[in-house]
Each structure stands twice: as structure tokens, then as C-alpha cells.
């Protein structure tokens, strides 16, 4: 990278070759208004807000698309520029219904902010305002064409970052409209419901249905946390108001998921209508009844310790969800392993990383020149990985090899597909290095290969690494997908991922937390287990069959750390306080050990 120097507004500033004028301005903290610009996607120069004057140029030019050149003399502000920007805004306001007071985005709207900033206090042209329908078909997001300024941010994000290609422009001229697929309602379209379009929309055209009209950003608190829905641990921002989490947003500052989230992370964890467990429950006379914390803890200790006394440490089991934080797992082990010496302590979803390869980040995937996907369906369970792979293939021309039935959408982009049933995937992976095969050729010439593997694949054959003759230092890399937020942390703590309670266990403690998937697994075993205690956030059939129930906070209410798929420690931070009567899991278990 060579440095260039420009004169902007009479000030000497530095930039790098390849920068646009806008980039140089950003580096030097020079404000240039933008509307269609969005970091990470290609520039289209549509909105004309960032027009600047370049000395010697024929006319005004857009800062976002014009490459900065050494010695350029640029003016970003002048009366003429200012009035052009104001005129552009005036036209935009006259085009569709931008009456702010009824708009969800009012106060957080970039168009509105630009209008204030440029002193656009009235619109002198007739309002064109064609009548447009609202698309509220989608469960999580809504599209109001009336507020759309056609900046195409959503279109570009959907195509370039997400790779879904669900959004586009239809018709032309003044009739241009945002459309999904062939003009279907969003719910009937190929939308993957990742919500990236909503997050980048500068106006109130695409908005989150749950948080709509529930407050502007300045009335809310925003807390950075990490998503526990899978082992990627995507960086999120929790937006909350009055003790309620309004929405989950991707943290754009994260170099990993960069603002992207999957449907589960962004929407599903908030949008369930499950009944919470709000206070401790103890079975009395065959019925579960409310109890105080002391009562419940005493009943728990009595049940567990009675079984241990009768059948030895082997008669006691503790099973956690691998969504639980390191702190909660430590407290669990503190009581059951260290104090009671039980051999039956596990964490469902715990998964260790395969040996012998450096861990690949999402960033690595995006920059890879070869990606090999094997095992688990990344599209279904790890959408954000799928987005990164799409981006690498479509935007940067990476080669893709798919082994097994993983990632249906990605199969279209793959240069080699090795079909295999789920029990054959591991074996099929080994065939990639078969002499003379297309895949071997690809692997041999790849400089930056990434293996993305998931269940049932647990190891990457060393032969693959050996085949990668052209690989750079530190490559190939492996991203091993895992199902739970703290799968890696649980494995590191030595907890195994077994899915059942060992034979002969007479008392079990299940730390489910807000993991709604794991409790049902124990339903068939309920009768074998004499005493059952459950620590859960939500009511469920197993909860109803337990002897002691301890309420647990959900992930947006708690603090703690997790270890993600790449072995990096990520943090959970509470955005809201848990309901009264709900205590942190780690604290509760720590109390037991004393």
C-alpha cells in the first residue's frame, strides 16, 4: 500500500492508493453526507448526497465512487454543493410519503437526519406519493415501499453479503420498486429471514415488526453481547427498553459476522411465546408448588445427596446444555464433580475442535480460495457460515467443494459435489484426495483452503493437509461447526456430549437454562430417574415432571463467557435484568457447593 496525499477543503490529508475520496474523508474525519453508501458492499453512487468538487474535473463527482488520486484538490462543502444536496433531498421527499411523524424510523432515520442537517425545511414540488401497499406478510420484518428511497443497500447486502439474492429492483424510472423474487410477498419469497436488510435500511422502509414503534434508539439501551444459538458466537447488540429486549442486531464492528446474523440469532430467540419459570417449584404431595429459594435448594440438596448416600457417587448425574456459560459449567462441576465426585457430569452439545489444524475464522472463509464443506447442513443450522461461503464464491471467485448433502443452496455454487449419506460423510471426505480427481487438483493448487466441517464429521484427515501443496503458512484452516454457543468451552472443561443419563442413576440435575431443545430428550428416561431437578427458563413437559424446578435467566439477562468454535472467548452481557425471583445459574450452584 502506498500512501497518497490530497488537499481536502484546504487541508492536507493522507490516504492510501485504492481509496475512494469518501474513504480518505472518513480516515481524516471529514464529514461527507451519504445515503446509499454502506461499508462492505460495492458502491453504486446512486443517492448523489456525497457529491464533491474535484478541481479540474468536468463536473461534480460522487466521493463514494471516485478514486482518490495523489495531489487531488477536493472541496466537500460549498454553497453550490450544499444547495444541490438540499435539492436532491427535496426531490426524494417529494417522491414518496416521507411524513416523518407517522414513520417507525422517525428519529433514527438517515434521510430525516440529512434533511435537518441540510436545512431542508420545505418541499416546493408537488408530492407525487403514489399509493403503495405495505408488505406485512413476513413474521419478523415489514416492508413499506412508501418510505423507500431506492438506495439499494438492502439489495446489495442481500446479494453480496448474504448471498440470498432475494431482493432486487423491478420496473424502472419513477416506477422503480423494491421487490422480492418475482414480486411475491416477503413471506412467500426466498427470503432467508436473516434481517440484514432491515439493519441496513436508512429509512423506515424495512423495519423490525417486534420493535416497531417501541422507541427510538436514544430511548433504548444497547448492550454488546454474543449469540449463544450456535458455536459461532456472533457478536450482537441487544437493544432494550423498559426491561424488555426489543431486538437483536448484528454488531457491525465485529470483524467476524460484521453485522450479519441468522434467523435464529436475530429473531427466533426473542419471538417465541413460551411460558417462563418465574419462581422455584417443589413437588409436594404429587403436585408442583411454589417454593422459596431456600426451600427449593434444600429439597434439591436432599434429593441428590440422598441418592448419593444410597447408591454412591455413580447414582448421581448432572447434565448441562452446552449453551451454559463457562461460569455456570464451572459451578456445576464444583458441586457435582468436586464435591460429590460424580462421574456422570456432561454437557449436551459439547464438541471438541479437530486436531492438527489452525482454526478458521469467518474472515478466513471470505478470503479463502478453496472451501470444502463436509457434514452438517450449514444452510440450515449455521446460516452465517453459509453467507460467508457464498460471499467467497460469488464475490471473490473461491472454489467450493461440498461433501455430503450439506448446504443445499451452496451446492449450486460448488465446483465439486461428492454425494454421501450422513453416515458416509467422513469416508467420502477421505476420497477427496483420490489420485487424479478434480478435488485433488483444486486442493493441490489452493493457497488458502478452509475446511468447514460439522456433525457427523469430527476430524479432518491429515491427508488433506498433505495434499495442499501450495498452501501458505498457517493454512489450510478448519472451522468445526458445533451446535451450541459454548460447545467448545464445555468440551474444554472436560464435559462429554452424551445425550442420555447413565444407567443406574437415581438422581439427576439438568441445567437446561434457556435451551429449549434439550429437555425433551430426557422424557423417555424420566421414570428410570428417581429424583429429577431441572434448572430451566421455560416451562416444558419435563419441567412438569420434575421434583424440583429452579428458574433460570435467558441469555439476554445474564453475564458470562463462552468459548466459540474458533476457540475464542466471547462474552455474554445482560441487556435487561431477569424477572424478580430468577437467579443466575452459576450463583445458585455455587451456593450448593458451600
Amino acid at each position, binding site marked *: 500500500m502506498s500512501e497518497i496525499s490530497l488537499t481536502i477543503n484546504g487541508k492536507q490529508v493522507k490516504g492510501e492508493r485504492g481509496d475512494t475520496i469518501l474513504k480518505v474523508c472518513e480516515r481524516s474525519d471529514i464529514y461527507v453526507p451519504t445515503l446509499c453508501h454502506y461499508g462492505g458492499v460495492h458502491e*453504486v*453512487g*446512486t*443517492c*448523489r448526497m456525497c*457529491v464533491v468538487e474535484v478541481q479540474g474535473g468536468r*463536473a*461534480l*463527482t*460522487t466521493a463514494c*465512487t*471516485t*478514486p482518490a488520486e495523489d495531489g487531488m484538490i477536493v472541496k466537500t462543502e460549498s454553497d453550490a454543493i450544499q*444547495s*444541490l444536496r438540499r*435539492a*436532491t433531498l427535496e*426531490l*426524494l421527499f*417529494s*417522491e414518496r410519503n416521507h411524513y416523518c411523524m407517522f414513520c417507525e424510523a422517525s428519529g433514527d432515520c438517515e434521510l430525516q437526519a440529512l434533511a435537518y442537517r441540510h436545512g431542508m425545511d420545505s418541499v*416546493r*414540488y*408537488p408530492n*407525487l406519493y403514489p399509493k403503495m401497499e405495505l408488505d406485512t406478510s413476513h413474521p419478523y420484518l415489514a416492508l413499506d415501499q412508501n418510505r423507500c*428511497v*431506492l438506495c439499494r443497500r438492502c439489495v446489495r447486502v442481500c446479494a453480496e453479503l448474504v448471498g440470498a439474492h432475494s431482493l432486487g*429492483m423491478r*420496473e*424502472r*424510472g*419513477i*416506477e*422503480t420498486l423494491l421487490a422480492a423474487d418475482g414480486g411475491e410477498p416477503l413471506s412467500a419469497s426466498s427470503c432467508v429471514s436473516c434481517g440484514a436488510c432491515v439493519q441496513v435500511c436508512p429509512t423506515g422502509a424495512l423495519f423490525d415488526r417486534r420493535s416497531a414503534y417501541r422507541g427510538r434508539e436514544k430511548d433504548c439501551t444497547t448492550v454488546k453481547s454474543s449469540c449463544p444459538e450456535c458455536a459461532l458466537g456472533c457478536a450482537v447488540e441487544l437493544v432494550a427498553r423498559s426491561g424488555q429486549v426489543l431486538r437483536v442486531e448484528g454488531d457491525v464492528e465485529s470483524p467476524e459476522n460484521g453485522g450479519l446474523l441468522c434467523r435464529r440469532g436475530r429473531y427466533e430467540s426473542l419471538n417465541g411465546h413460551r411460558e417462563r419459570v418465574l419462581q422455584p417449584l417443589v413437588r409436594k404431595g404429587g403436585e408442583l408448588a411454589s417454593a422459596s429459594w431456600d426451600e427449593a435448594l434444600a429439597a434439591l440438596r436432599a434429593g441428590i445427596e440422598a441418592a448419593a448416600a444410597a447408591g454412591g457417587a455413580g447414582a448421581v448425574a448432572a447434565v448441562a446444555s452446552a449453551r451454559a456459560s463457562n461460569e455456570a459449567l464451572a459451578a456445576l462441576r464444583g458441586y457435582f464433580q468436586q464435591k460429590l465426585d460424580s462421574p456422570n457430569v456432561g454437557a449436551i452439545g459439547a464438541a471438541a475442535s479437530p486436531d492438527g489444524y489452525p482454526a478458521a475464522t469467518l474472515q478466513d472463509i471470505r478470503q479463502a480460495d478453496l472451501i470444502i464443506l463436509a457434514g452438517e447442513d450449514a444452510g440450515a443450522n449455521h446460516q452465517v457460515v453459509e453467507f460467508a461461503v457464498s460471499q467467497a464464491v460469488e464475490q471473490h471467485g473461491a472454489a467450493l467443494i461440498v461433501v455430503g448433502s450439506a448446504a443445499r443452496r451452496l451446492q449450486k455454487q460448488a465446483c465439486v459435489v461428492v454425494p454421501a449419506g450422513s453416515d458416509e460423510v467422513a469416508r467420502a471426505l477421505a476420497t477427496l484426495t483420490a489420485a487424479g480427481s478434480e478435488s485433488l487438483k483444486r486442493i493441490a493448487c489452493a493457497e488458502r483452503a478452509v475446511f468447514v466441517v460439522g456433525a457427523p464429521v469430527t476430524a479432518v484427515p491429515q491427508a488433506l493437509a498433505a495434499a495442499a501443496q501450495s498452501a501458505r503458512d498457517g493454512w489450510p484452516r478448519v472451522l468445526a461447526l458445533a451446535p451450541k454457543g459454548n460447545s467448545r468451552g464445555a468440551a474444554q472443561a472436560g464435559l462429554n456430549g452424551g445425550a442420555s443419563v447413565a444407567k443406574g442413576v437415581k438422581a439427576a440435575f439438568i441445567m437446561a437454562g434457556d435451551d429449549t431443545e434439550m429437555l425433551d430428550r430426557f422424557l423417555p428416561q424420566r421414570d428410570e430417574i428417581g429424583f429429577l431437578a431441572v434448572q430451566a427458563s421455560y416451562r416444558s413437559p419435563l419441567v412438569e415432571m420434575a421434583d424440583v424446578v429452579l428458574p433460570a435467566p435467558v441469555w439476554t439477562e445474564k453475564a458470562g463467557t463462552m468459548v466459540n468454535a474458533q476457540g475464542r472467548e466471547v462474552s455474554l452481557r445482560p441487556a435487561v435484568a431477569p424477572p424478580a425471583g430468577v437467579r443466575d445459574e452459576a450463583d445458585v450452584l455455587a451456593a450448593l457447593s458451600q
Partner: protein
Amino acid sequence: MPAYRSTVLLCAGGGCISCGCLPVREAMEAELKRRNLADEVRVVQTGCVGSCDLGPVLIVYPDEVFYQKVSPGDVPKLVDEHFLKGRVFERLLVKSAETDNLIATQREFAFFNKQVKIVLENCGVIDPENIEEYVARGGYLALGQVISERTPEWVIEELKKSGLRGRGGAGFPAGTKWDFVRKAPGERKYVVCNADEGDPGAFMDRSVLEGDPHRVLEAMAIAGFAASADQGYIYVRAEYPLAIRRTRRAIQQAREAGFLGRNLFESSFSFDIDIRVGAGAFVCGEETALLASIEGKRGIPRPRPPFPAVSGLWGKPTLINNVETYACIVPIITRGGDWYASIGTEKSKGTKVFALAGKIRNTGLVEVPMGTTLREIVYDIGGGVPNGRKFKAAQTGGPSGGCIPAEHLDIPMDYESLAKVGSIVGSGGLIIMDEDSCMVDVAKFFMEFCTDESCGKCPPCRVGTRQIYGLLDKITKGEARIEDLHLLEELCGMVKESSLCGLGQTAPNPVLSTLRYFRDEYLEHIVDRRCPAKVCPSLIRYSIDEAACTGCSLCARNCPENTIFKVEDQKKYRIDPARCVKCGVCFDVCRFGAVVKS
């Protein structure tokens, strides 16, 4: 091969075909056969002769006798007179506009003899569907010569010497552009021919492709040689099916003859051409939009830089010129850049084809040296304004251009002079308007066109043109106030300055130029609520002159709103002004001149 005594050139340009020239050909061939003349007289179907309003047109060689408006029914008589009796068939000759004398030959016809044909030299002379005729006139010689004897540098040097500027609109020096592409780094490069002639009123590119397609193919191959590209694309608009068909056939013939394909003239140079057909979007004439369209995307322009010469088709350096520019290349190569530079003015070299249309006696394509005055074109070549009306303005450059008023009739038609009066050469549309044309209406027409053709990407063009149209509409309806005129001017300036591509940047030109020369007419609409040219429906009224009315009821029966009623006890009709929608049907159908506009 029989030695023909005579050749009949039958114009088969788009205009003549729509007037029915193909049945004329059939009749002619049948008649010649019947009279046993088939071995003596040859019928050749050529491209556009240029005089489109006279079609179907026949020119009989060697005497160059020019017959107009020939119908199949005329053919037996014509063959009888011309080929058997050896005399000119007078009924189908053209009459001189000034003297009323009959004009027998093409040479005597002012419409033709004032023109200098370089681009159109083969149009109307050769059979465009037969490569042999092109080759017989020296075709593909230049390509062979360039490949075997010259270097790319030499070609570009000649081009620079010629002073040729792009004929598509902006007038960028062609030699410089070719040089950019040649010097641009890149393995793969492309040559593109822009035949998306979208300017309403311009049809020279169509005529060249219809009448002399090999000329364009040869030039593109030369361009490929100069820019070291091996693939060319011709992007033709879908509205020109004949041009597409003939160009396709020409490409096929050139491939078979070895003028396109691998290792041309036994050199290492390979070049091939494909056709891409547009689908109805004016904006695709803009080069970056055109490239997007060739790539199979929406035809949406992108900001430049990077210019196509650096990053064009699929990100590769791409040379784009329009048909007329390519049509100049072969003569420049054969006769030299200096020769070409000797034609035209100091800064605008060579010739320019104008598509003369509108309120003018001789309509069609005219090719004149740059710098020919507007007056010469309108009066000497065009034969002046018909029906005794007065010249009011000439519109050049289509929706990107402006109007030239009568006071500038002596302006030389070249890039600089036209720019000085606020218009452009553009692609060469030249629409003549008389007093019956309302300038506000003309501006509104172009703005409606731009609104319709805006791609919708940037707000100044997408919304701006719509709002300008709205203001103009208000003016033509007599609902505007004087402030609206100021708003209009401000908005035009803004759209011009901040639009993304050429379409938006030039869209306000027709408004600005009519405001410059015909401001009074705007003011009349606004202040007096009156349209002096009697065009704007809201500002005129129709009535029936009872003295002239014969009571034939034709108007009443054709009135779509049934607003014309019979005056009681009289054989006269009247229009109910309150319900009249001013469609003008009664005016058109009245055979007695009884319906009057006021």
C-alpha cells in the same frame, strides 16, 4: 453471367419497406421476365437511399433516373416506357420544389446533389445482403492492408490525424479513445459497436446497418486490430428487426469469406463479432448501461471513472463507438487521415449524417460536411418548410439537445457552433418545426420521454425529470404561475448538475434551450393562458364555422364524447365547448374546413 444493360436499384430501407417496396420488387421481376428482359435488366435491393418520404423509390442505372412513390400497379407501365420504349416514365418523377419542373435523375435532385457521402457512400448503391457487392467496391481491402502491412500505432495515428470525433453524442476524439484502450493493461479486450440508436428522430445508424453492414464489421475488425481485442459485439435495438437481420447475415458471410474468425489474412490476428439485441431501453445508449445490458443485466449506468476503456465489459478494457463512427473508419484508412481532415471545419472534421424530419418538404437522411449551415440543409437540401408555413426552429440532438431558432439559421452545423447556441450535434436527429409547433409542448414531449426512459437509479433524474414534466404540464394547461418558471429553471440546473449519467445530465437541455429562445412563448402560456401555436389542448378551443359546414355530420359521428350536436332546424352542427375534450378528431375528419381551432 449475363451482361446487364441496366440496373434497377430498389430502395429496401426501413421506410420504403413500410411503404410497400417489396411487392414492387416482385412486380418488377415478374414484369421483366414477362417481357424477356430478365437477362438485360437487373434488380438490386439496396439499403436506404435517404429520401424516405418518397418511397418506394427506384433508381435506374446507368442514367440514374429517379422514380418515386412507385406502386406495383405502376410497374408494367414503367417497364414498358423505360425499358422497351426507352423513355423516362414522367408520372413517377419528382417535381422540383421551386420550379415545378420534373427532375429526371438523382444528380439533378437538390436533395442529393448537395450532399457529400462518406458514411452513406454505399447505402442505396449496393445490395447489403450480398458481400460480393461490398467487396467489389473495395470492401475488406483496408482490413487486409492494415493487418498485413500496418501496426496498431499506425492506425491510431491515422485516426488522430483525421480528427474524427465520436458520432454518438459527446464528440470525444476517436483516435484518443482507441489509444486509451490499446494502452490499457489487460489480456482480454473488447470492441463494442453501439447501435442502440435511441434518439427519437435519428435513424442513420439503422440505415448504415441496413444498407452497408460490412462497412461496420470491417471497421470493428480494424478496431480490434488496433486495440488488440479479439471479440466484438454489436448492440442493436430491438426496434430495428431489418438491421438485425442484415447484420446477422453480413456477419455470417464475412465469417464464410474469412474476414472474421481466426487468423485473419493468415496473420495471428483473430477477431469475431456477435450481435446483442436490446429490449427497449433508451438509457442503454449510455455506454456503461449498454455494457450492463450486454452482460444480461438491467441497463443501468454506473458512475465513471472507471471508464470502459479501462474497465468495461466484464471488467475488461472495452472500446465503444457508435455505428456512424465506425462507418467513417474504412475511408480514413484507405484515403488517409489527412484527406478526411480536409473535410469539415477546423475542429469538427469530416461529414455528419442528419436525419431530417418534421415539417420539411424532403424528409430523410442527409450527409453533409461538418460546418454546412442549417439554412443549406433546411432550404437547399430539405426543400424548405411545406404548406407555406414559416420555419420556427430546428431541434438537434434529440432529448439531449436543444432548439435552434430562425435567427440562427446560418449557424454552421458543427460541435462547437451548436454548443455555443445551447444545442448539440448529438446523434444527428434534425427535426424541423414550423409555426404550428408549440415550444413548451416540444419541451414537455422530450421531458416525458426522459421520465419514461430514466432508469430510476439516481433521484435527480428519476424524480427530477418527473417534477420538471409536472411543471411543464402545468404550464401547458395554463395553470402555472410565474414562480413556477423560476422553480423550473432552478430544477433544470440541479438535474443537469447532479444526475449520474448523460441521460439525466442532458435531459433538461430541451427545456433550457427553449426557455432561452422562446421565453415569450412560455410567458404567453403562463400569463395570457394562451398557446400561440394552438397546440396545447387546454388552451385552445374548437368550434364549427357554420358558413362552411355542410351538415354532413361526419364530425358528430366521429366525436368520441358526443359533444357535437345538430343545430335545430338547420343542417349545421355545433360543438358543446363545456364537454369538448379537444381531441381534434372533428378537425381532422372535416372535409370542408369547417372546424376551426382558436
